[in-house]
């Protein structure tokens, strides 16, 4: 039971009673805050997290060596398994870079086939034994084993396994090309021998097979058997500088996309105008949200002005009336803020799913940062300022007038 003899207790009691009495207005107020706050937060978060997640989704590789062409296309094709391959490299070039001092790891990949739209990527099984896709994190198997370099076996990424319902022992015939097209099925039959655990990177959206499998696939050009689509690289020290000089500035046969993060950053930079537009939209939503919060609070408190006048005539002090208004606005704001977090998570989950399906990149939506807390606190403060505005108005307005029933 609330102690009404204490001023705080009385304020709290009246604030709760007021909230219950004006339940509809209060809930609508809280809902408006939740919607405005949630939209603002989710726009900011998606914008920020998509860039961060893309930068972190490079699978632990520092660079990609591929055919002469666009660095971004190379990265998108080799690491994000999007876009088309700019061309092939010879097997010798792969052997050469593998032996180059400063190259810690080099894994060839070959692409060109799919299974119901999901890419088959041919590579060396060593990738799954040795490579860390994230610092300290090697690929883990959910079930089965890693494919043999010389058998028609497949290791399925978690997302594909879930989407296509592939299990250990399942057999399938790949389709030709990077996009699914009926009637282009190869005769080769692959058997699923392993299912990978999720990594939240584009590798989850891939069916991994031995590189020889892609190179020698029935129906492929003979030249392909001696070429690779790209080489994924982990480098030591400053090897990247000398390799960039060798391939990009002095050579003319291959392109080194290095460093991956910088190439992606330059892509995001080029898309700066789009980010700018998003920022304008999010800040506009934020501004509208703030105005909405202030106005909602003002209307909620306006509804209660008769109650406040009644409190005044039965002897309520200025502090108590102020306290009740602020208490009521605080309750609405806090419910609104909790709602805003839920709206943000709901939008985040939907967006996360869409981005994951499209790119295989898992964006983080749960990591609250200082500025998110700042936004939430600001919502409460603005809400209470809206209430304060009403409190001042109520206190200075004509008591007799405020006693008239609100129609």
């Amino acid at each position, binding site marked *: 039971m609330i102690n*009404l*003899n204490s001023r705080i207790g*009385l304020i709290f*009691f*009246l604030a709760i*009673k*007021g909230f*219950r*009495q*004006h339940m509809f207005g209060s809930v609508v107020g809280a809902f408006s805050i939740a919607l405005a706050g949630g939209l603002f937060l989710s726009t900011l978060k998606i914008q920020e997290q998509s860039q961060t997640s893309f930068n972190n989704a490079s699978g632990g590789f520092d660079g990609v060596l591929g055919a002469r062409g666009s660095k971004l296309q190379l990265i998108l094709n080799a690491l994000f398994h999007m876009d088309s391959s700019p061309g092939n490299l010879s097997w010798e070039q792969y052997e050469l870079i593998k032996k180059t001092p400063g190259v810690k790891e080099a894994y060839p990949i070959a692409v060109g086939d799919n299974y119901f739209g999901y890419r088959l990527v041919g590579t060396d099984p060593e990738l799954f034994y040795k490579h860390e896709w994230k610092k300290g994190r090697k690929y883990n198997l959910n079930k089965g084993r890693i494919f043999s370099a010389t058998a028609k076996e497949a290791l399925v990424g978690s997302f594909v396994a879930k989407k296509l319902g592939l299990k250990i022992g399942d057999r399938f015939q790949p389709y030709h090309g990077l996009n699914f097209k009926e009637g282009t099925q190869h005769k080769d039959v692959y058997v699923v021998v392993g299912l990978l655990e999720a990594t939240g990177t584009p590798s989850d959206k891939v069916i991994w097979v031995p590189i020889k499998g892609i190179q020698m696939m029935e129906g492929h050009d003979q030249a392909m058997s001696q070429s690779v689509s790209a080489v994924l690289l982990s480098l030591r020290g400053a090897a990247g500088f000398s390799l960039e000089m060798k391939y990009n500035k002095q050579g003319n046969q291959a392109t080194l996309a290095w460093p991956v993060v910088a190439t992606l950053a330059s892509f995001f930079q080029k898309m700066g105008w789009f980010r700018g537009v998003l920022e304008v939209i999010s800040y506009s939503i934020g501004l509208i949200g703030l105005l909405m919060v202030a106005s909602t609070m003002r209307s909620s408190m306006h509804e209660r002005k008769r*109650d406040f*006048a*009644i*409190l*005044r*005539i*039965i*002897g*309520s*002090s*200025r502090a*108590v009336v102020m306290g009740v208004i602020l208490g009521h606005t605080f309750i609405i704001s806090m419910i609104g803020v909790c709602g805003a977090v839920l709206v943000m998570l709901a939008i985040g989950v939907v967006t996360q799913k869409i981005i994951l399906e499209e790119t295989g990149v898992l964006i983080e939506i749960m990591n609250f940062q200082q500025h998110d807390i700042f936004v939430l606190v600001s919502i409460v403060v603005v809400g209470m300022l809206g209430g304060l505005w009403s409190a001042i108005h109520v206190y200075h307005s004509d*008591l*007799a007038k405020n*006693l008239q*029933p609100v129609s």
Partner: protein
Amino acid sequence: MIQIREQSKDKDVIKSTAIDNTKSFLEIKDLRKSYPLGTGNSHFVVDVKNFTLDPGSQLAIHGPSGAGKSTFLNLIAGIIKPDTGSIRIGNLEMTTLSEPERDLARAQDIGYVFQSFHLLQGCSALDNLLVAMAMNGKVDRKRARELLSLVGIKEKENSLPSELSIGQQQRVCLARALSNNPKLMLADEPTGNLDSANASRSIELLRSLCEQNNCTLLVVSHDEKIINRFEKSVDWKEISDVHNLND
């Protein structure tokens, strides 16, 4: 000068140190209140030269609606400030008090019964009394229940005002006005929303409760039937005449 006096039946029961029984309990002098008109002039609604009430007395003021009676009560209660004049309640000079002091005086010493009851709609009958008591810092659930019992609606203590009949709401309003043992009870058209039978019952209840609680009662009404139930009554025109001021 209009001066109405009536002796309390038992002056000894008035125990408040704020009241000097040798003096009148309520004393009003040269009280004026006006409202600005759009033309730049003012419209006077109250002009009381001299008005006094003894402790424990009961008086009814009658007059037509819109004549300024409610404003007069609001001035006494310190809800609005006068243009000029003084209002002394016991030893308190209301016109020199700050707003928080007037709020406190209202919470401690003045009970107010309104025509529209002005109950907190989100609070039950009991809560309405408890909140009024809380303004005085003396919440007493037992006494609140006793008061509701006294006005005959104890079984409705958990009902919201919207769940009560007009008569029951009026009783809650009355119980609330008495909840802090006020020394002065003001009643503005207290039976205005009641039918004739309920109005008679209600005014008798108000009078007897004030008598039991040694509370000075000042009622304003335009209803002759109500006025006739009081031993002492006075025409508002005899207290306040604003004709000369507004001419």
